[in-house]
């Protein structure tokens, strides 16, 4: 795959992977309180502030061939590190805190009593959530998706460590820029992937702005 196509594929898959967890986690943090909540929140926000290289190293520790889950994955015939799957996982982990935060803020804006009303009208927990809270938090969820996608397009450090720089498999646009910059005479060639990145970023900003300004139904 070309770096552009790979960037887009990884971005979409990473967003699809991170969003359900961000929605569930955001709802939970907005609605429930429990002992140690602050600790959990801090831990979940960690990838946002850690150097991405450290996050990539942590992913290797868990999913690498000699990592914590390595034997389990090997038994299942899975080899994640240094594949496209690793690039997706790295991007998802890096985008997750942003998406979680956006979802949480969105759910905090929805009156929890609306869900209570739905429950008394005969809706189970899941139906109350899917028909009331989620549609009302829709704007925030769209924003979360845009943020996660945008973050994954810019992802470099964690991907580099966990997924490597394999042409056609993990070499996304940022890695392509970096690779070209490393090669003799590549400084001039880097303008193409760099320009593509700028174009993508502008398009995303426009989509994000549109999603935020859309009036709630």
């Amino acid at each position, binding site marked *: 795959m070309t770096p552009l196509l790979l960037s887009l594929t990884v971005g979409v898959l990473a967003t699809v992977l991170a969003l359900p967890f961000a929605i569930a986690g955001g709802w939970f943090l907005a609605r429930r309180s429990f002992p140690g909540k602050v600790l959990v929140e801090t831990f979940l926000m960690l990838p946002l502030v850690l150097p991405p290289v450290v996050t990539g190293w942590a992913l290797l520790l868990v999913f690498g061939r000699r990592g914590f889950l390595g034997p389990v994955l090997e038994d299942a015939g899975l080899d994640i590190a240094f594949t496209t799957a690793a690039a997706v996982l790295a991007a998802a982990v890096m985008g997750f805190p942003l998406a979680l935060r956006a979802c949480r803020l969105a759910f905090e804006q929805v009156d929890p*009593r*609306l869900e*209570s009303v739905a*429950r*008394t009208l*005969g*809706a189970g*927990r899941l139906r109350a959530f899917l028909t009331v809270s989620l549609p009302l938090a829709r704007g925030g969820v769209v924003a979360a998706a845009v943020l996660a996608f945008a973050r994954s397009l810019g992802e470099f450090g964690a991907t580099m460590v966990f997924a490597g720089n394999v042409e056609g498999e993990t070499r996304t646009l940022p890695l392509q820029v970096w690779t070209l910059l490393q090669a003799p005479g590549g400084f001039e060639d880097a303008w193409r992937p760099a320009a593509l990145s700028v174009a993508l970023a502008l398009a995303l900003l426009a989509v994000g702005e549109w999603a935020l300004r859309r009036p*709630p*139904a």
Partner: protein
Amino acid sequence: MTTLDVLARRQVSKEFLLDADFEIAFEDALPVAALFGPTGCGKSTTLAAVAGVPDPDRGRIAIGEEVLFDWNRNWSLPADRRRVGWVPQDGLLFPHLTVEANLRYGMRRRGAEEAPSFDRVVAVLEAGPLLARSPASLSGGERQRAALGRAILSGPRLLLLDEPVSALDEAARLRALAFLERVAGEFRIPALFVSHQRTEVLRLARTVVRMEGGRAVETGPAAEVLGHGPIHGSVDNLLRLEPPAGGPAPGRAAVSGREVAVAEGAVVAGPCWARLPSAAVLLARHAPTDLSARNALPGRVLAVAAAGPVVRVHVDAGQAVCADLTEAAVRDLGIAPGAEVVCVFKAQALEVLP
């Protein structure tokens, strides 16, 4: 007869402990009861506990034989299976759905054959023109009506109404009260409502639980609990007026299809409301002749609130009408629930509201 048995204890905040213990037996004819007390006495918390949103810390709540919550047995029926219609103070319609979708939201729970039908509820609550609108565009009274309809359509065995009319202005409040009365008469769903206003409670409720500082201090017939004796003062009946059958004419109108005379030659050109004080209504066993009062509406006695020298008689005359009589008159006329009576009142007593 439905009974509601509540023992609810909940530490709402550091300062406020709810510790309510009461039992209500809803009368079949007019199954409306009220939790009455000042703001912040725990009425709404009690109501929410019955709905299970949330459960109290401990206690026991049962409707008839069915236990909804029992702390001792570690039992809590999930809120979606309690079959109670909870209407919070501001109605809380789902803002992303139309009024119609709101009304239909709870219908999936009940069986298809179960009354009341969607059309009937919409007709009684006059919600037809609201169906396509979004909740944000409704007035306070309209929102309240839609929320009430949504709760009724979910097939509840008990309605829980939190301050159903107090957020409304005077005119809207009278109107909403009339709707509540009509709903109670029409659908006969036991209803427990919360209020801090005597007049509302006297007008609607047969049984009252008086609450103070988180405790239920007194339970009994409305007149007894609120008046400690006779009923003080008249309540306002609110009647829906239509133009008379022959078209609008000065001083003429119709109530539930019966022609009536109204004060000061007012012209009723479209549906509107009129105020009729309960003290201005006489009851007769037969349609009177040779009487100066112009208006006579036949009806059936729903309930008799006997307390002291004044007795309030609730009549279903197509619309709910309260009449204040003396105890002796009630006895002599043989007025009891189910009796056929005629409500008689002067044209001057019926004040058309703008």
